[in-house]
């Protein structure tokens, strides 16, 4: 009698744990205080006069992660699946940056899909691996999950907005923010929007795959349409923002949508800090110190593109 009750309890607990990602979070494992995050490169912008090689990473993404306590490894495009699998097993998280490539046919999107699939599999097996998508990265994640492009045009090319936070939803991302900062986020124009496309709330709601996979954390409105500005996956450590937290401390082009207020800087830090604390739950590491050293972005020098450039510094890769 006791034993079968205990068995039932064990099964129930296991179920609850699976639902709350207990195993995936590796609760009993110590945190990894030396996280290394991969940042995916993308094809060079066609008329970029500073470009060399084939691909680039804007330095602001690197600084965004370093400033909250992680080291960075650039993940190149045009690599084999085996090479990507090898990198995946060495790093503790992946960031998909903003940009302007085709999120269904580019090398960026090919690599993103490979890592997305690897991450799903890993998380399912209890190997906690977080992914962060900013702007184009957000859009990329939506395409990967829905298996189609559901984006629509919005009037959001250069504007700083507050966030309309989804009420009564306890999110992992925003739970880590101080209350006063959330209050500021809800009323101050501190999230920079530089996108022509968005995932409308309508398209999200009408797509079963998206709805099942992602929880909406905040929306915004361009005057005509409501679109998703922040989301996180229900059952995976995947997070996405349509706005740009990395620009407020690290990009200085003077144009609409750009802000450097202290609150905006704090938002940037807490955003990055949260993602890195997720990466600390991953125990991957490079097979050797030498390989780790060779992979780090310290081996590369960014190019100064001028104080009026949309990216003040870019790393370029062959």
């Amino acid at each position, binding site marked *: 009698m006791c034993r079968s009750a205990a068995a039932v309890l064990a099964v129930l607990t296991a179920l609850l744990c699976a639902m709350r990602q207990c195993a995936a979070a590796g609760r009993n494992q110590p945190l990894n205080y030396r996280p290394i995050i991969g940042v995916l490169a993308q094809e060079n912008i066609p008329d970029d006069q500073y470009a060399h090689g084939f691909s680039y990473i804007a330095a602001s993404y690197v600084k965004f992660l*370093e400033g909250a306590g992680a080291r960075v490894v650039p993940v190149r495009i045009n690599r084999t699946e085996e090479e990507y699998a090898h990198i995946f097993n060495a790093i503790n998280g992946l960031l998909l940056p903003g940009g302007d490539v085709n999120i269904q046919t580019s090398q960026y999107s090919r690599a993103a899909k490979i890592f997305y699939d690897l991450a799903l599999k890993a998380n399912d097996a209890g190997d906690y691996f977080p992914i962060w998508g900013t702007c184009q990265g957000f859009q990329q994640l939506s395409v990967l999950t829905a298996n189609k492009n559901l984006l629509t045009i919005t009037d959001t090319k250069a504007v700083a907005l507050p966030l309309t936070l989804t009420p009564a939803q306890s999110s992992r991302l925003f739970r880590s923010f101080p209350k006063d900062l959330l209050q500021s986020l809800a009323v101050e124009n501190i999230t920079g929007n530089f996108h022509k496309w968005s995932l409308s709330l309508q398209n999200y709601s009408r797509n079963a795959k998206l709805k099942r996979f992602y929880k909406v954390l905040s929306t915004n409105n361009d005057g005509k349409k409501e679109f998703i500005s922040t989301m996180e996956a229900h059952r995976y450590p995947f997070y996405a923002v349509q706005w740009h937290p990395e620009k407020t401390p690290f990009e200085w082009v003077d144009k609409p949508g750009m802000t450097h207020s*202290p609150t905006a800087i704090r938002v940037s830090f807490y955003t990055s*800090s949260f993602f890195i604390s997720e990466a600390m739950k991953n125990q991957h590491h490079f097979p050797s110190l030498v390989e780790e050293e060779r992979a780090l972005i*310290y081996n590369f020098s960014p190019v100064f593109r001028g104080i009026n450039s949309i990216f003040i510094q870019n790393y370029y890769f062959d």
Partner: protein
Amino acid sequence: MEEYKKLFNSINGILYPGGGVSIISSGYERAAKIFYELAIEANSRGDYFPVWGTCLGFEQLMYLTSEKTILLQTNTSGMALPLNFTNEIKDSRMFKDFPAELIEDLATEALTENSHKWSLAVLTHNSNEELNMFYKVLSTNTDGKVEFVSTVEAYDYPIYGTQWHPEKNEFEWTRPYIPHSPSAIKTSFYLAQFFVSEARKNFHKFESEDEESKALIYNYNPVFTGPKSGFEQIYFF
């Protein structure tokens, strides 16, 4: 001197980093003295100009203010410590905006990296009139023998110093005693945020966009020195 004056009037704050040069006679010391005096003069006439000193920079400030060599050797090369806050932090500018939990963490966890052979003993500070009239001691630490000053802010000037290294928590990975916990990172962020907020009170700017552009560090690329040194990257000039 003229070049430094021009630069002073273009920037909004200055930071004296850690290192190992002489605080009595070196290129670093000479420049530090010039900027310190310019800052004192500017602040005195209402031109708010903040100065930050980390480790050697902190020691440099102590030397500039007291005009005496007053450091003691301590056994503090390569360890992380909590901070023993004094009563003065209640009204301090530096820690005013720190979340209460972070102050608690700083006081109980080893979040501050110490890699210095010399320190300013509390006794020395208290008995030196120039120093104790100028600086408010916000935290102290001890190596088991000597109680030394670890964090200060000037009473009447936006001049700040730490004997420890907040910048290492996020950015340096070559030594095992550098703390990287979320609280350690937050400490660094909040301190940097504080100093930058002080710099926002200054309205100096470069004479032209071109001059500003030429001066910025983006023009330089650091060398990856991590495998061979205590610094991941060093800018050489």
